[in-house]
Structures are given as C-alpha cells and as structure tokens.
C-alpha cells in the first residue's frame, strides 16, 4: 500500500522567505508521528501542504499516492484535519455541528460521532462557543474521527488546553488509534506528551528536516560522550556531533552514534528523547545566529 504521506524535496516560499525547504520524508501506515520544532520552523506549513490547503513552491507531496492540491477528491475523503485553535462554528450547537458533518462527508459515521459526544459527557444542545477549550477540542476531534479518515492531521491540538483536558484529549486520540487503521501526524511543543503518544518523530528547524525517524531508533542511536577537554579540530574529525559543551577541563558531546566507534577516552551515556530534541533545536538556533552574523 502507498504510504499515507510521501514528501520529496518539498518546499514552500512566501515572498523571499522559505517557510519549508527540501523536505523529504515518508510517514508509515499506522504510525503516530510527532512534528516538533520552534515557532516558525515550518510545522504548520508542512501540515497545510499535506492537507492541500497550500500549494508547494518546490518538490512534491503525495497523500495515499495522490496530489492533495491537484486531486483533492482523492485525498480529502481519507484525511481528517484539526487546525490550530480547532476552529468551529461557535454559534452552532454540538448537534448542529454533527449534522453539518453528516451533510458534508460521504463516509460520515453518525453513530460514532454521537457515541463519542455521549461518552465524553458533552451537552449536545449547547452552543460550541459556550464550551470550554477542552470540550471544543474534543468536538473538533470527534468531527475529524467521524469522517473515518485513514490519516489524521492535528496542528497543535493540545496547545490551549489545561493539563487534565490535554490528558483526556490524548486518551481519546490513542483509543482511536488502538482501533486500528489510523495514521496520525501531530505537532506540539509538549515533549513529555509526545514521548508517550508518538512512535515516530520529525524535527523541523529553520524550514528544514533535522531528523525523521522512529523514536526508539532516535533514543537507541544518540549518546552523550563525556571526556577531557577536546579541541575544535578533534571534534571536527568526529561524525554527527549534534551539540557540544565545554568547561576548562571537560567536554561533553551529544552525537548520533549510529555504529561509529569512539576513542576510549570518551565515556558513553544514554540520553532521553527530550535531551536529544533540545540539542537539535539549540543547534539550529546557533546555526541561524551564524547565518545572521555572516550576512
């Protein structure tokens, strides 16, 4: 079966600024992929290209083998999308909102939609604008799931939610994934959540993909090396150094160890996902500062 998402050399330029550049990746069927990166890294741009809300400047993206802009009919029936701040018609009741979903989607599962609203204890006659942020997010997720999508795209779905609502949202989402057949991409800043719910990660920074890999592999391949102070020339000879820190006498390096062999002076330590992601994001910031300085 064709991959839910396949991007090749994908790029998007707004005016003179590249929001996303040279992005090549594949999202495997049934995976839950975290999309992380600082604000302005291109996360929303990538998600909008996937759902066909935006046209690539460069390269291509295929969703279940089809072009989201050129052939929306082939793509959109398979895709559920929840945009940032989960926009809904605030003057509609939940019942009205579900009716709209029923009228607009050929594969709409009305039973599922009503069962979810009831299970969550949401007041079906209440106007959406009067619901709490967490409840609105659940209504938006219900709308997306009742389309019976094969791919669910969520842009910062939990950003505006309190911790309890966030947990409940992710519980609902994972229950939907457990039923099988659903591939999910979600962007978020909350790394602790992502580590629980996701099995793949894409790190975007500065409009470029820094890393796209199964989370287990990321954790298994990255190591922190500590040892006596090393000079820049020695470090430059080493492969895949993500970040480096020095004191007068000590150096610590975060490396993608990927089967490389290190000198016995280095002590190897395991690192958790959060450390690794932060190292990639910090690296990007220093790279950007270099660009600005040289410009």
């Amino acid at each position, binding site marked *: 079966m064709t991959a839910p998402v396949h991007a090749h050399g994908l790029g998007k330029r707004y005016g003179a600024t590249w929001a996303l550049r040279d992005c090549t990746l594949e999202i495997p069927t049934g995976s839950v992929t975290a999309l992380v990166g600082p604000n302005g890294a291109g996360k929303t741009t990538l998600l909008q290209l996937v759902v066909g809300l935006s046209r690539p400047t460069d390269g291509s993206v295929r969703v279940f083998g089809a072009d989201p802009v050129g052939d929306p009919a082939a793509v959109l029936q398979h895709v559920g999308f929840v945009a940032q701040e989960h926009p809904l018609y605030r003057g509609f009741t939940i019942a009205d909102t579900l009716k709209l979903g029923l009228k607009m989607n050929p594969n709409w599962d009305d039973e599922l939609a009503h069962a979810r609203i009831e299970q969550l204890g949401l007041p079906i006659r209440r106007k959406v604008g009067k619901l709490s942020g967490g409840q609105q997010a659940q209504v938006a997720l219900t709308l997306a799931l009742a389309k019976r999508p094969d791919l669910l795209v969520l842009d910062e779905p939990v950003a505006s939610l309190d911790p309890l609502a966030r947990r409940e949202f992710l519980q609902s989402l994972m229950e939907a994934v457990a039923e099988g057949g659903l591939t999910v991409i979600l962007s978020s800043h909350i790394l602790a959540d992502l580590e*629980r719910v996701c*099995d793949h990660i894409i790190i975007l920074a500065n409009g470029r993909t820094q890393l796209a890999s199964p989370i287990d592999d990321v954790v298994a391949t990255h190591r922190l090396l500590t040892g006596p102070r090393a000079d820049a020339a020695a470090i430059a000879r080493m492969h895949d150094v993500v970040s480096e820190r020095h004191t007068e006498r000590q150096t610590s390096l975060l490396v993608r160890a990927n089967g490389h062999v290190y000198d016995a002076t280095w002590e190897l330590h395991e690192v958790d996902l959060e450390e690794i992601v932060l190292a990639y994001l910090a690296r990007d910031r220093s790279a950007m500062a270099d660009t600005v300085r040289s410009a």
Partner: protein
Amino acid sequence: MILFHLDPRSGVPTYLQLVQQVRQAVQLGILRPGDQLPTVKDVVGALAINPNTVLKAYRELDHEGLVVARRGVGTFVADELPSPPDDLKGLRASLHRWVERARAAGLDDENIAALLAETTRAERPARVA
C-alpha cells in the same frame, strides 16, 4: 484486573514499566493464572500512551511465557507460569545477610543500590553500544 501506572521520571522505557508491573503483580498474586490483562484500548485510554507501546509490552511478556495472547479474545496470564529459580530462597537469604553486613559497615540505601547496580553491570557480558 491490573491497573497500570507510569513514572515518567524513572528513566525506564514505558513498555518496560508495563512489563515490570505485570511481572510483579504475578509474583505478588494480584494476577493469577487465567486472569485477563486489560485490552490495549483500555490501557491507552487510561494512560494516554501509544498502542504500539502496550503491544510491545504484551509481546515481551508472551515471549517470557508469563502471558498467552489469544487472537481476537485478549491476553491472559499463562496457566503454567515459568517456575522461579530453585535457589530463590537461598539467594534471598544470602542477599539479606549481605545487606545487613553493608548496613553494619555504614552504607546507606543509596550506597547499597549503587554498589549493586555497579556489580550487576560489571558482571554483565560485554555488548556493543
């Protein structure tokens, strides 16, 4: 039925925490042969974790012979549990004596744990990073 919980600060991978909790529940008799483990959907609904993590834990337990997966029905504690090593009682008694000696020598719990961890690491066969 077992209720899983997670300690995000433990540094132990999530699937391994689930594996350890089932092992312990079986040892303590909270789970008995034939008992059903929660379905994957129940676990992810309770903990907000990825279903593959639960599947991985259940596969590991199946591999150890602690549980049996019945397709389309669920996962159950095995009827015949792998028997504990014959010498468990003896090992526990000698460890008990060792801990007493360590305390008498002035080690606190943290020192004892560190020493035990260091020794088990040192005795482990070498492996490639």
